[in-house]
């Protein structure tokens, strides 16, 4: 890890958007000069729920407890629902996803697009063994709809490679990053190992959520290569995905054949949107290396979902 200077730090400690206050972040086309003087600011997304899984609102900085590598930190500021969101939707179009599911996905993504606010954007990635961005960040719902109609299912699955690529992809630092994967959780040919993916998750800042169908219309293989792929797709990676999602503050949302996919995608977006963004300047901890994070709130019965650490 290079720790030569503030700019380098910001580039390397990629998981965090750093700013002194949310007001500084908005409306800046060129962000780096802004952060050069704010090198120690760390930003953490934190979703707070009560016992009924309802979002807890109206929390102040003093309501949060943030522990960075075991050292309690003072939260300087919080914001709630103010930052624009970049949503990356990655759809598994390998052999195991049928045309029927693809159509449901198309509708679900269309619904998700409509749920976005004016300042929010959506990017669409399709993956089987290839990881292909078919629409870059956009607010154009029609473009997304047209693109997803061109998708056809087939081939093997490079799920871990797709996750890694989605996490590493450049994103604007003044926007929150939500990455939603729709996948059956199988991987047959990724070159990325789970431990490598953990490293990537720790060094990037997107929040990963997986929408995982359990038994949605698995399609049998129909071609030579997909037949071989079926043979090697023997181990679902659900435990690995759960761990990666938790590392980034995200979750795994299982769905079944009767699940309204559009509703599921909307729920993922709502949960992400209802998270707080905490800002603090780390004190009393070494700067370099991995920082394990723990975030709590001083409310009885409330639970916090936040990423588990970041790389400095």
């Amino acid at each position: 890890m290079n720790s030569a200077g503030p700019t380098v730090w910001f580039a390397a400690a990629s998981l965090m958007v750093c700013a002194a206050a949310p007001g500084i972040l908005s409306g800046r086309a060129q962000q780096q000069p802004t952060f050069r003087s704010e090198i120690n600011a760390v930003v953490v997304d934190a979703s707070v729920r009560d016992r009924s899984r309802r979002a807890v609102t109206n929390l102040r900085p003093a309501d949060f407890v943030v522990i960075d590598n075991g050292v309690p930190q003072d939260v300087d500021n919080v914001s709630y629902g103010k930052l624009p969101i970049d949503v990356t939707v990655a759809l598994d179009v390998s052999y195991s996803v049928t045309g029927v599911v693809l159509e449901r996905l198309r509708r679900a993504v269309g619904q998700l697009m409509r749920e976005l606010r004016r300042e929010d954007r959506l990017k669409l990635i399709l993956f089987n063994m290839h990881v292909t961005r078919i629409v870059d960040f956009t607010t154009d719902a029609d473009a997304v709809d047209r693109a997803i109609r061109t998708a056809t299912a087939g081939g093997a699955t490079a799920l871990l490679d797709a996750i890694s690529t989605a996490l590493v992809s450049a994103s604007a630092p003044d926007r929150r990053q939500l990455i939603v994967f729709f996948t059956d959780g199988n991987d047959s040919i990724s070159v990325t190992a789970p431990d490598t993916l953990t490293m990537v998750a720790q060094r990037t800042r997107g929040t990963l959520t997986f929408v995982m169908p359990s038994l949605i219309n698995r399609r049998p293989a129909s071609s030579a290569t997909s037949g071989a792929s079926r043979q090697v797709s023997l181990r679902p990676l659900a435990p690995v995905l759960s761990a990666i999602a938790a590392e980034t503050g995200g979750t795994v949302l299982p769905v079944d054949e009767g699940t309204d996919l559009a509703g599921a995608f909307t729920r993922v977006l709502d949960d992400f949107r209802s998270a707080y963004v905490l800002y603090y300047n780390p004190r009393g901890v070494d700067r370099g290396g991995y920082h394990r994070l723990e975030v709590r709130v001083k409310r009885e019965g409330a639970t916090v979902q936040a990423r588990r650490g970041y790389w400095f």
Partner: protein
Amino acid sequence: MARVIARFGLVASLTLLQGQRPPANPQQTFRAGTDVVMVDVSVKSGDRVVTGLGPEDFVLTDNGVRQRIESVESTAVPIDLTLVIDLSGNPDRPWTRRIDHSKVVADVQREVQEVTSILRPTDRIRLLAIDQYVQQIWPLQQVPATPIPRVEFDGLASVFDTLAAALIRPVEPARRHVVIARTKGVDTISAIDARALRGIAERSDALFHLVIMENALGADAALSGFQSNLIGLVEATNRSWLPHQRRLVSSGPPYQLLSDGIAVRSAVETAGGGWHQARAFSVPSLTGTFRETFESFRQGHMLRYTPQGVTRSGWHTIAVTVPRSRGYTVRARRGYGIEDSAPAPAPTVPAVPKTLADLTLAYEAGAFQSVATALRQIADPQRLMRDFEEEGNPWPAAPRREAGFAIELAEPGVFSPRAETRDQALRLLNRFTRLIRQPLGPDVFERQWYYTVLTLLQGTINPPALEAFADLALARFPDEPRFLLARAIAADQRSTTAGASRVAATGSSQTALETVRRQYEALIGMPAVAAEARVRLAWLLHRIGRHDDALARLDEVDVEPLDGSLRYLQHLFSGHVMNALGRPDDATVAYRAARAIAPDAQSAQVALMNGLLARGDRAGAETVAEVIQRQRSTDFDPWWMYWQGQYRLYGQAMARIREMGR
């Protein structure tokens, strides 16, 4: 011996003319009726071989029409000698069962050595033995230094089958094929009869000599039978109790020719060879017969003519004389046959073959790619395979083509998601493992066929099926490195419960991995597969945490420049190993090297992206991520095919099979 250089008939004869002047298009060359016939002629005056004769000395008639002899050439070309020895029954001491195998082998070895001592360095020899099965003790080779391995003897007699196997061998360009066979003249188990053998001999290009030793061993057998049946002192050993003996000569003096013997002798003489039978107490020896034949052949004449004034197709009776000296004995082939040469009208090949009839038609026409593409799109390969098996070989005269077509049909089947379809495809292939066997032992086609099937099955990642076929292949070709590699890959596939991902290694038992490791280690000593064995061994060592050993193996890899896949994997794996050894800078260098080999392959890009991020080069990682997402789709990524073993070579292997089946 006559050689008919014709499009039809003695197909093997084409090779000679090709050797002299390779035609650009053999079919065109022979279609115009310019068939050339070559006849080997031996002329003797008493026991003296007459040499130095010219075209004007000979009179040759073809179906009674005198022909113009275009040239008389020396026959001092290299010969391929096929020796056939009869080991059926007890070849040594028929009055006792105390048969000493080592003595039988030693006797055969000694006798064959006497023959080989006559051969020239350019000559070659193969050795067949008559017993219950046709045995090829030596394939065709230069004078062998290796000792004769174990032979089977004292079994039933497959005389006709073995002689047929000896005669059907095609003659190579600029060589002559001489068959010298010694038999007791008793056949008990052949599938063909003497008349079929005669038909084969008439169409063979071999100079065929047969040595009959019936009288000598017949006496032994009689003694044996007498002792066992009347005195009861010892047990009978000859197979006189067997039903349906087909004898060439009668079992006692004066050893007259029987009907089968007449047919075979006719075959021998038609082919221009000789019938050597014991007279009184004189038994012709193998060595003596060959010496005589060799000398006669070496000093003989080869007459060349283009048939004129005769109908092309059908049987041609030829007669050769030397008119100016009626005391000469002239030995030459008595005829040859040409089948009807009228070419059948070319059938119309369908653009998109769908039915079995369409597919076979297209395949026969050489539209291999259309057939392969169509087969991959057919929804029910099971039905197609069933039809193929029920309807039989569409090309009875081209069994190799049929065997190749069977692989084409099986390909979509082995990849089918339906278990019953996969099973049927495997059964089809399994059936052909028997059909492609040559009676004399494994040949080049069988080796290539197995190789092709094994490359295909590696692609299915079905270790049990791959292992089963690898075992079959190794039973035929025990030392073939590619088959040993296939078996190692099967074990490797089996050892990874999840197959492709590195996460799979956690599910492998140490025992299984150790087994695979040993197999790869053994292959490193075999140059043909050493590079691939090293790469695969390195990956296995990396998976089990032996990173230093893995790196050493990768550093040893010396990959042929053309095998980009292996070179790619070598660099990709080096990168992974470097990362594991805490050398991220070296890892990114390795990943870049892999990317340089296959710029469109995704795996090296992803590995490089991850590696750059691990080094703290986030900007670099983002750049690569952008490239990955925008990259045009390509299915070429050696890593994606890693667990499919040598399936990457299936296309090449299949192309070779198609070529061999033409």
